């Protein structure tokens, strides 16, 4: 997937120097790319591979070290199943809504004439997309808290207190609201290059053939963009599914999510000896994320066809 993205259509012989030696240099040339990638493979293998093996192994052990299926069995019952359901629902909501909004926002930025605006949004998106955790929780409490939140106070002055109309920062939808803060910039970041790939010539050709704005989008624009949009939404799904600190500090376990349950069992102060259940939940999350990544890869491969 990564290599096809480089999109080179230049023949190999024009890139490399002409053959000088015999078999020896041919072998060297074949091994050179592998050698160059070796540090990356080692780093990924150790940094990602070892923890994955550790998780898979521990998911099937008891605290005493004996093999068991009971951890995985717990996963599909009761409160841990609820955790997965909530996580999946939250991830779906906070990937589709900011996904669609992000496309419109990115389109507005891409088609604007102000270079300053484009640069500002690019930088801001990159920063805000990674801004999560306890800081974010505190920002939202300070802004939208029930009686002392700054924005709540302002809205109250004009008679529009969101809290008295059913808004609750500390429930499931409150968490989704907070997640939008980093999900929307992430989508803008991801979809902007794809929007840039929409050639002006396609639009002109469509107009020449008498297509209205709507028909252009319906038959040209959206089909071309769709793989990128889907890829972006899947990326947002993964990002939201794995988010931990924000929801944990905001809701203290009253909204049950899979990453929070992992934290409670593996590194908590209350539940003793249940760390292996946490690893089972982690394995479950790995499976979900692997499926997401497969679809993301397929979407990207489709998308890269149009960006050449």
């Amino acid at each position, binding site marked *: 997937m990564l290599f096809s993205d480089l999109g080179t259509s230049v023949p190999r012989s024009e890139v490399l120097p002409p053959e000088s030696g015999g078999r020896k240099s041919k072998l060297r040339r074949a091994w050179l790319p592998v050698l160059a990638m070796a540090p990356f493979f080692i780093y990924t293998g150790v940094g990602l591979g070892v923890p994955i093996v550790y998780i898979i192994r521990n998911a099937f052990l008891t605290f*005493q070290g004996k093999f068991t299926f009971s951890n995985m069995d717990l996963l599909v019952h009761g409160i841990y199943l609820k955790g997965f359901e909530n996580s999946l629902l939250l991830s779906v909501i906070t990937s589709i809504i900011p996904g669609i909004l992000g496309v419109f926002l990115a389109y507005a930025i891409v088609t604007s004439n102000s270079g300053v605006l484009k640069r500002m949004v690019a930088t801001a998106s990159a920063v805000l997309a990674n801004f999560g955790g306890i800081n974010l929780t*505190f920002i939202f*409490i300070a802004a939208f808290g029930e009686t*002392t939140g700054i924005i709540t106070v302002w809205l109250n002055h004009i008679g529009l207190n969101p809290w008295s109309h059913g808004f609750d920062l*500390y429930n499931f939808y409150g968490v989704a609201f907070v997640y939008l803060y980093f999900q929307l910039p992430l989508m803008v970041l991801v979809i902007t290059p794809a929007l840039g790939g929409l050639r002006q010539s396609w639009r002109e050709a469509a107009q020449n053939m008498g297509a209205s704005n709507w028909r252009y989008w319906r038959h040209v624009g959206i089909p071309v963009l769709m793989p990128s949009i889907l890829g972006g939404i899947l990326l947002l799904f993964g990002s939201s599914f794995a988010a931990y600190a924000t929801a944990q500090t905001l809701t203290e*376990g009253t909204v049950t999510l899979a990453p929070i349950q992992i934290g409670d069992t593996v590194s*908590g*102060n209350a*539940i*003793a000896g249940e760390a292996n259940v946490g690893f089972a939940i982690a394995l479950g999350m790995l499976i979900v994320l692997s499926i997401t990544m497969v679809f993301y890869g397929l979407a990207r491969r489709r998308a890269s066809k149009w960006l050449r």
Partner: protein
Amino acid sequence: MAALIKAAKKEARLNVIALPDNWANYGTIIKDFKAKYHINISDQNPDGSSAQEITAMTDDQGRSNDPDVIDVGTNFAVTAQTAGQLAPYKVQTWNEIPSNLKDPNGYWFDDYGGYVAIGCNTAAVTTCPTSFAQILAAPSSAGYKVGLNNSPLSASAALAGVWAAAIAEGGSLSNIAPGVTYFQNLNKEGYFVPTVAGPSTIQSGATNIVIWWDYLQASEISASIKGWKVTVPSDALFAEYYTQAINKNAPDPAAARLWEEYLYSVTGQNLWLQGEARPAELAYMEAHGTANKTWEAALPAVPKGSTNVPTPAQITAAETTVTSTWPTEVTTGP
């Protein structure tokens, strides 16, 4: 004892874990031990949790940074004992530790504890509540915004807070369900703020009442919030102790045992008292006049009544109940 000191000094090192400086005065305790015995103490992961301490003992086995001693929630010590990770040891003052605060075979022993207390920001609230019942029954004009220090599924202090509410509402050490119902009702009335409460949420006004250990309220909240009042609730006397244990595979066994001797000496116990925690041997020290009078007087007053102290088995049972009921009952979402 002299032989122990000699052997410990030879090891010249002690590995502790998850001991924050401002938690029950550990900063001073560590400094004092270092100065007294010239043994270097390295504190791995000072803000770590009990679960992380147990994991470190397992994962670091055989390495020189393997924790020698642990200070964990009692149910964690019992789990480690069952898994055969602990070495038994009875300190010289063993008989001064009450029998319900130690393992009869010496595998673990409680060190310090406190009462669940209601902390109140006198600058933001006109009448500070003195009981759980008062909080729930208060009119909305009282403006109570109650917080716990974390999720009861994640922090034993929060679990204790829910348990104390259970006792106030007619539950017991074997029945924590009324406590979950209490917070469910509190949430419905809009008094419960389900976010991690601490000095920052108090300063921003998001919470003005915090239910937490009395000694942690003293060291972590009173230090930064002026006018913070800590009261032990009149309708729930709930105390819980943390627990010491020695790693069976401790790389510095003599230093580990000397550390325990120090902690359970009059000096060590009084230093915990200075941190506003109640040391395990406090009853004995009060009876024999060795407790520091000034520091003892600084402890929040305990209303009349018998104190509820849970056993490890009760803690595990309570945790199981709360794990399945807290996320589904105390929530205002789907």
